[in-house]
């Protein structure tokens, strides 16, 4: 397995190249590029500029592990407004295009967003419909769309069997699961998601989660590896069971308040320990 980390983790005042140096020095093999989340990679970034990003990544001794985006939180594929939906599809298309330019074969999509206003059944149908079409485009480009399990935030596809039905309804070999082992919280166990979805997993986000914290025990909070309640030995065993040998991508939502570069080294070492299977 190979280690990657998002470019949105790079401290804001560092810049892309200094961030790449840090990621390489910390021991990562690759970098996850977040479309729309960082100044150097926006929807308006041209193809030539994207090629230059790839050149800089490779000059630093890294490769691009995948293309992610947070833009779908504001422009979901499940929106009722056709104009928003068109923009959401355009974002996925741009992810596919840039993935090809960056030499990677995977993108992350937050598929749908259930809200008070837009109910579950609508979101489900609209996402299946959109991803059938986008899956065809991804297949032609040789790229896989990984739909992320943002269980609590999306209020959508809460169980692994339901997620499996969703992928089955889309019925595209180019659409799979981008699994985030920290997002499952109280709705299940990451190791079971890995066992159930196995070959349909396109990439894996790593972070830990502290369940039932806060004064009233009613909050889950994200944290660094091994500080939370994920069962890491079980997760590692499940990865071995299904033969997952792809990218592990650190997505640390809680940031070090001081010495932000230290978090890169600590995270890389934690990932090495996970990969080694020594607990």
């Amino acid at each position, binding site marked *: 397995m190979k280690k990657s980390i998002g470019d949105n983790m790079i401290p804001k005042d560092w810049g892309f190249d200094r961030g790449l140096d840090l990621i390489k020095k910390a021991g990562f093999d690759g970098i996850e590029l977040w479309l729309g989340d960082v100044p150097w990679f926006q929807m308006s970034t041209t193809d030539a500029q994207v090629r230059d990003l790839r050149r800089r990544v490779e000059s630093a001794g890294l490769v691009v592990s995948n293309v992610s985006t947070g833009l779908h939180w504001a422009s979901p594929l499940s929106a*009722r407004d*056709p104009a928003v939906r068109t923009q959401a599809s355009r974002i996925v298309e741009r992810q596919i295009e840039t993935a090809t330019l960056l030499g990677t074969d995977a993108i992350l999509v937050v598929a749908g967003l259930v809200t008070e206003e837009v109910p579950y059944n609508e979101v489900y149908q*609209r996402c299946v419909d959109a991803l059938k079409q986008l899956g065809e485009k991804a297949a032609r480009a040789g790229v896989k769309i990984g739909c992320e399990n943002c269980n609590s935030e999306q209020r959508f596809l809460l169980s692994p069997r339901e997620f499996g039905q969703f992928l089955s309804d889309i019925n595209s070999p180019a659409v799979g699961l981008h699994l985030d082992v920290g997002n499952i919280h109280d709705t299940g166990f990451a190791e079971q998601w890995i066992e159930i979805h196995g070959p349909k997993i396109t990439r894996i986000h790593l972070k830990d989660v502290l369940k039932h914290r806060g004064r009233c025990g009613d909050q889950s909070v994200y944290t660094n590896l091994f500080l939370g309640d994920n069962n890491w030995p079980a997760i590692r065993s499940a990865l071995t069971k299904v033969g997952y040998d792809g990218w592990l991508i650190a997505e640390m939502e809680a940031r070090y308040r001081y010495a932000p570069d230290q978090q890169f080294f600590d995270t890389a070492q934690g990932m090495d320990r996970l990969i080694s299977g020594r607990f």
Partner: protein
Amino acid sequence: MGMTRREFLSYGVAAGAMRAGVPLSPPLRASPTCCWIVSPVPGQCSLPESARGYRAALPPRGAMAPAGEPCSLLIIPALVCFDRHLVVWIDRALQRGATVIVESGAAFAADSSFRDHRRALRQGLQLDVHAPVDLWAERSGRIPYIDYSWPHRTRVRDFSRVVPVGKQRGEVIAWQGDVPVALKRRVGQGTLIYLGSPLGPALWAGDAEARRWLHAIALNDRV
């Protein structure tokens, strides 16, 4: 729109194929005298799921008439812009005694498209509508359901925005709060129904009450 009537009619959908919705209500059995056409206006894809919703809710085959043929129920889903060819078709269907459902797709349209929509409705079908209302602009904690009073009382999820109907000839058949959002009117031998809140997306999502509402109309050719 730059097309002939023949071209327009050729876009009419003669056979439903989509079975997207979860069958939350019993399947509809068509009577021999009952047939329908779901015909989105070509070139405008404002709410593609709306046409799919109607097709999924109506029987997939057998009772659907070829486009342009006489039918007991004609549905124009998610309508924004249209021309005189459509008006002629609607009027002919009404004169033959059909029920025609014109579903507005203009609530999300740009201002200029909505103005065209309103003008075309007024000139072509003598329907008066008001500017779209965003039902979720103020978060009240309440779900703004659409309450239908005809053909039976029922309640269906809103679709975020509605096109209210103005005071005019005909009977208001649905309300969102105190805002009238659907109207029916006898025209010739038939009945014209204007829906200011799209029903198709709810049908597509498998909404049981929306299906019962449509079935009640589809099965009764003398509404």
